[in-house]
């Protein structure tokens, strides 16, 4: 676990500050909620427009006249966007940036299997990814109590776990792109195309005729709206998301172990 622990210690600033910054959306919403509450009904009417519904996806179905509705709509959308950027930018560069800088040559001359090296570095990403849902959860508890509102904390916990599983699965797909291309620019392009396409397919899937597109994107499984509707974790969705993540991670480890490092 040397690679994991060392990189965990070395990356703590970025690893903590970024999730903290993203999760500040919760106190921000809590800050505007008391004044927004009075106009919420009118705003909800505007959101019934099909274009907004398509843009917001299942989040658009939330009842934003309640704290729970506004919380999940804003936090959900904000975290989805954060996940898109994080999953594209970080895992794809785990190996590719080392190739760019040429640091792998020395490291891999030591007796550590390549797959284990990669796995430990991915685990650092997976660990810091836990902080996004964790910080959001803590801020949600604090702000809900200070506002005197109610929020089902069990469902919130499951929704936050859902976000982490997305980060894991999409991150593993992005990692696979990194190991396939071994070059930051190409890895980021491939990872971006893969993840943004899925996000766009989810949004287009909100339009009636294109709903079949949703079946092929990770974002359609373990969605916050789905977890809220279900009142907890949806095990079949969990299996799909974890399955995608595990297969992509295994493929990335295999590719990195077997491929030649000709650069």
């Amino acid at each position, binding site marked *: 676990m040397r690679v994991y622990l060392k990189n965990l210690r070395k990356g703590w600033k970025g690893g903590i500050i970024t999730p903290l910054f993203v999760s500040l959306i919760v106190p921000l919403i809590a800050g505007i909620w008391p004044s927004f509450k009075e106009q919420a009904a009118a705003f909800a009417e505007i959101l019934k427009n099909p274009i907004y519904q398509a843009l917001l996806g299942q989040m658009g179905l939330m009842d934003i006249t309640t704290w729970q509705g506004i919380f999940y709509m804003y936090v959900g959308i904000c975290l989805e966007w954060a996940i898109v950027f994080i999953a594209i930018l970080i895992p794809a560069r785990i190996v590719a940036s080392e190739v760019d800088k040429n640091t792998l040559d020395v490291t891999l*001359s030591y007796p550590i*299997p390549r797959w284990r090296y990669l796995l430990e570095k991915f685990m650092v990403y997976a660990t810091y990814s836990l902080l996004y849902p964790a910080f959001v959860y803590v801020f949600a508890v604090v702000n809900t109590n200070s506002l005197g509102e109610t929020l089902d904390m069990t469902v919130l916990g499951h929704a936050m776990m859902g976000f982490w599983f997305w980060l894991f699965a999409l991150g593993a797909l992005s990692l696979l792109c990194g190991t396939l291309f071994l070059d930051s620019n190409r890895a980021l392009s491939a990872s971006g195309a893969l993840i943004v396409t899925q996000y766009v397919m989810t949004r287009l899937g909100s339009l009636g005729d294109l709903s079949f597109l949703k079946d092929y994107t990770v974002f359609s499984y373990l969605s916050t709206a789905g977890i809220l509707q279900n009142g907890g974790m949806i095990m079949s969705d969990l299996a799909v998301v974890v399955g995608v993540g595990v297969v992509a991670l295994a493929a990335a480890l295999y590719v990195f172990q077997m491929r030649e490092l*000709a650069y």
Partner: protein
Amino acid sequence: MKLATFKAHTQEAVLEVSHLTKIYGREITVAGRKFGRRVVGTLDVSFSVRKGEIFGFLGPNGAGKTTTMRAILDYLHIQEGSVTVFGMDHHRDALEIRERIGYVPGDLALYDNFTGEELIEYFDGFRPVDREYLQELRSVFRADLSLNIKSLSSGNRQQVGLMLALASKPDFLILDEPTSGLDPLMAASAHRLFKELKAEGKTIFLSSHDLAEVQAVCDRIGIIKEGRMILVEEVENLVSKFLQNVRVSFTSEVPDLETLEAIDSVISAEAEDEDTLLLKVKEDINELLRFLTKYELDRLSIEDATLEEIFLQYYE
């Protein structure tokens, strides 16, 4: 006693490269048109490095030195041939081999956000550092290990790279231009360390463009050119055996240069003045001497060429 020890070491090959062929890229022919490009990395390269010797690996840029080293380390997939290190297959037994080797790449890059000390601690977990020897290395090299790598000069980074490779006192060192960027004093210290390691029975395989370095530390050299190994020879023999400068002054008739160059062993012939010729002769000089008996000579001098002249001969 020392000679006996050296001979015992030399009986065993640490590295054996046999018919190593590495071609980069692919060429596909579709409907008569060729797509892609094949670039020769190495072609049928064979040589061995014996236990307890320092083997210099030389060649012009792009000749295949780094390709060979990266193939030995199993970073590259070779198309043909085999590589064994300590008698183990370089691919199948890569992890066992790496427990016993140290490597300094040509284009050395270390983690910028680590200090030298952190790097040594980090890699200590993979291949344990010899603490006593590390202290010795710290007294030899001047790089400040408490500083972040990004704040070090390229020469100091190279020193850290060398310390990392040497710190575990590995049995076999693969060094790609190990003293590039070092000042002459540090380079000399590195050479002394290499010789000390050799005296302890360690084996070193190094590439270099610094001929003085090669002459100072290497026992044998291999020269690679356009992916092919064109020479493997003891450094001691190289100077006397491979190239001699012959200066001949004639009293009357002077043979024409083309006739001289037609002699197998004569590599080049040039007129120094109207009576004197300067010839570069490779290996057997007797044929030339027999030819010269047909002429009246004023003076004849035969000198060993410098190592630089020999290398240039092979590089060109």
